[in-house]
């Protein structure tokens, strides 16, 4: 048999019907639902008099609109009436149709891309969809996982299938030991800096190489999560011991003989030797420094010790124009260095960086220090109730609050400002989230994407610093 990529293998396993025009009917193993992109899908289903094809393939939780304070009050505690209706609508739809939902107040509630893997609802070899582009996260478990629109959410509810065209294969290989202070977030930001925000359009990206192999599942999720910021709907990583060890004893994962049977199949979920990739990108871990985005697209990224690039030096006219707009939006003067940017707020959280490892990394930097007086707010938002519980067990909440960070309750929070957490007009934020688009974190807000350790260090100093210097200095 012709050598196949990981993506090819999972694709082949899910073809229900191949069409002549190159599209195929693809079976979907798991759908994750949240309150923002599902109400119209449920409504459509009802209007057409249809019922879900397979209830037990779905798992729901509210995340985008939930407040990150006083969650004990439940849905009634959502102050914004429009947000409250949206969460109530999800609750009502899940109750009516019989879909399992982790409601507000359930310790398992959290950001949909954190809870799927945490519960073992994300398993290798699956096709996974959700009405959210960061569904790419789940590809860390060797799945084809991608965001879809609401019409497709309805399509999957009704048929358990999607009509898809196969993507092309790209391999991004990162090799070598990660330098001290450089994290999964810096890897993916560096990759996006290299390929550009549309570099992965039309591709599924498999991340390979010794650096990726050495990452924890949390790190791999961070990398796959932002594949979409490089244009690729899917990111994937092959199965190895790290994957299998993470999945053992997860609530929705297989047990006993089924576990053994599953593991033996999962071991095959990697690209064959000699499999064809349409495009290959290779990076050396040693070349990657802590990254900071300076502009309004994730591709506008540089190392922390760099100056903000001068648009006049950009030769590509389209890029130059984008840079000029970003300069205007961010209100920069020429010649500023990354460390000159004055920060107003710091956000540690989101589906990119709100898992236990992320919080540990930030806490390590925060420990024994104080948030700078110039910072209006520094907040830490765990990705799920279970992450929060674990962090508190380890005393991370105490470290954060002692240092002047706010310790919040799980949700999407300031990543997209659909809840009470947002930036004010003109404010600069060091954020561990995934998008620095204009207005993303609040109208007029200015986002800088960084790793959790870099965000914590920035909170303490009041501006961006190289976390490598910071940690070595403070630990002496």
């Amino acid at each position, binding site marked *: 048999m012709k050598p196949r990529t990981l993506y090819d293998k999972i694709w082949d396993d899910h073809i229900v019907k191949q069409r002549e025009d190159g*599209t195929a009917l693809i079976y979907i193993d798991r759908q994750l639902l949240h309150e923002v992109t599902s109400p119209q899908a449920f409504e459509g289903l009802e209007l*057409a008099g249809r019922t879900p094809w397979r209830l037990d393939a779905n798992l729901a939780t509210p995340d985008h609109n939930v407040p990150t304070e006083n969650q004990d009050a439940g849905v009634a505690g959502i102050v914004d009436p429009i947000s409250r209706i949206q969460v109530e609508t999800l609750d009502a739809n899940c109750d009516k149709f019989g879909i399992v939902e982790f409601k507000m107040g359930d310790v398992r509630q959290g950001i949909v891309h954190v809870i799927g893997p945490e519960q073992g609802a994300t398993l290798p070899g699956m096709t996974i969809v959700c009405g959210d582009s960061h569904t790419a996260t789940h590809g860390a478990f060797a799945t084809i996982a991608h965001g879809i629109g609401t019409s497709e959410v309805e399509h999957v509810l009704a048929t358990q299938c999607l009509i898809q065209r196969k993507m092309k294969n790209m391999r991004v290989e990162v090799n070598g030991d990660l330098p001290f202070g450089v994290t999964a977030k810096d890897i993916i930001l560096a990759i996006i800096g290299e390929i550009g925000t549309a570099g992965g*359009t039309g591709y599924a990206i498999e991340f390979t190489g010794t650096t990726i192999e050495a990452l924890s599942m949390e790190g791999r999720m961070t990398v796959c999560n932002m594949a979409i910021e490089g244009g690729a*709907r899917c990111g994937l990583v092959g199965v190895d011991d790290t994957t299998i060890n993470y999945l053992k004893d997860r609530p929705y994962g297989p047990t006993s003989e089924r576990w053994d049977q599953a593991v033996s199949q999962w071991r095959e979920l990697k690209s064959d030797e000699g499999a064809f990739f349409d495009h290959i990108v290779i990076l050396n871990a040693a070349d990657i420094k802590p990254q900071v985005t300076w502009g309004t697209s994730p591709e506008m990224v540089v190392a922390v010790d760099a100056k903000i690039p001068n648009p006049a030096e950009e030769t590509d006219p389209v890029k130059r124009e984008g840079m000029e707009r970003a300069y205007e939006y961010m209100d920069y003067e020429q010649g500023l260095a990354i460390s000159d940017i004055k920060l107003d707020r710091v956000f540690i959280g989101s589906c990119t960086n709100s898992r236990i490892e992320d919080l540990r990394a930030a806490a390590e930097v925060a420990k024994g220090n104080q948030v700078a007086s110039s910072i209006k707010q520094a907040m830490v938002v765990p990705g799920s109730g279970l992450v929060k519980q674990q962090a508190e067990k380890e005393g991370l909440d105490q470290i954060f609050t002692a240092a002047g960070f706010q310790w919040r309750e799980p949700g999407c929070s300031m990543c997209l400002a659909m809840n009470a957490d947002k930036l004010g007009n003109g404010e600069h934020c060091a954020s561990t989230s995934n998008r620095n688009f204009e207005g993303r974190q609040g109208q007029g807000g200015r986002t800088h994407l960084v790793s959790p350790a870099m965000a914590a260090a920035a909170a303490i100093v009041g501006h961006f610093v190289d976390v490598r210097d910071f940690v070595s200095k403070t630990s002496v």
Partner: protein
Amino acid sequence: MDQFTSHKALVAPLDRANVDTDQIIPKQFLKSIKRSGFGPNLFDEWRYLDEGQPGQDCSGRPLNEAFILNAARYQGAQILLARQNFGCGSSREHAPWALLDFGFRCVIASSYADIFYNNCFKNGIVPVILEDKIVNQLFEETFANEGYQLHVDLESQTVVTPKGESFGFEIDAFRKHCLLNGLDEISLTLADAELIRAYETKRKQTSPWLFDVIK
């Protein structure tokens, strides 16, 4: 879904690359549980000078006169001429819903983000892909000629300029078929229900844990 066969309409030029869906429809409007009513908030942060709120009457809001869609000559446009990587970022289908509600039935650009591209077809919007060189030419002609219209014909897969210059574009046969006939994709897929059941039966034998119940 509305069918799309042939459309001759006024063109509005949005001359910037990498327009993301957060720009097309900002997050606060995603709180709606409806599919319609997003038109007044299309490109909200660029279109108005104040910060928009969901449910607000937009008729009295201060307009950003510098924004192209506010120019008198582009009122009533149904074709949006855009630049590369249009619709990047969030998967929100509210983006095509807002474009449609505003009146756009067709977007022309040199490339799109994958999810946005896909979402257009579910809503009777044709996302036409033309080469950069041709898109540049169309921008120039649109700017130069007030009342500039293009004729987008799906059957023949062509965009025709007022001078009669014709440019072909590619589109999946299945998607074209659905658009031309305004077909409901779910009904089409359910016609293959037996195939789906057969797939499930086979898969349950080889990988039974995939069918373990989430409860």
